[in-house]
């Protein structure tokens, strides 16, 4: 959570390029809101993942299963959840990418176009993570 926890703040008040200013401000908003969304999704996913493994262990125990049966049961749960962890890791990486692009822009080392592209990648990564989570959890 270290990288995601960084609060991105820009000092663009003196910037004379209004469209660029708005684009970067919008990207900062995307970075901050998706950070919260990703953190919330991660926390919920981890709790549910543990709970699902415990539930299959309880079923296996109730059916008189042994250690091998228990391992098989949790392997199924772990395979089901793998796309969620991949998607959430990708979302974290996309967040880090946007953060770097904004910092580079602020330092005069990057272009606003890079910030816009990175913001788009983050939105897409967040959507993919939400979809992966919906697939595992099923419809609400």
């Amino acid at each position, binding site marked *: 959570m270290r990288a995601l926890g960084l609060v991105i703040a820009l000092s663009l008040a003196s910037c004379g390029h209004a469209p660029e200013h708005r684009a970067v401000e919008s990207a900062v908003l995307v970075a901050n809101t998706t950070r919260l969304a990703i953190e919330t999704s991660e926390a919920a996913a981890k709790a549910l993942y543990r709970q699902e493994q415990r539930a299959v262990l309880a079923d296996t125990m109730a059916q008189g299963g042994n*250690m091998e049966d228990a391992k098989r049961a949790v392997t199924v749960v*772990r395979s089901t959840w793998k796309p969620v962890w991949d998607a959430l890791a990708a979302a974290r990486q996309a967040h880090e990418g946007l953060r770097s692009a904004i910092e580079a822009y602020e330092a005069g080392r990057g272009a606003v176009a890079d910030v816009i592209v990175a913001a788009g990648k983050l939105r897409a990564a967040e959507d993919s993570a939400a979809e992966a989570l919906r697939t595992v959890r099923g419809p609400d």
Partner: protein
Amino acid sequence: MPALLSFLRFLADEAPALIPAIRDLVHSWCDKTGVDKAELLPALEGSIRDDVAKIDADIDAEIAREFPKPTR
């Protein structure tokens, strides 16, 4: 240094089971070279896959504790 940080993050994400060994390696390498550990070690922390590996390890321990070994 950014390339090394990216590589450490890659390892942390793709091979969370290796994190303790890599952490030891970073410590000894930093001691030898004088590179600041504080710059490198955070790259090995907080990975989602690391968190998942911890959950799996807890569950594996529970299985070992609660379930009988199969009889042949």
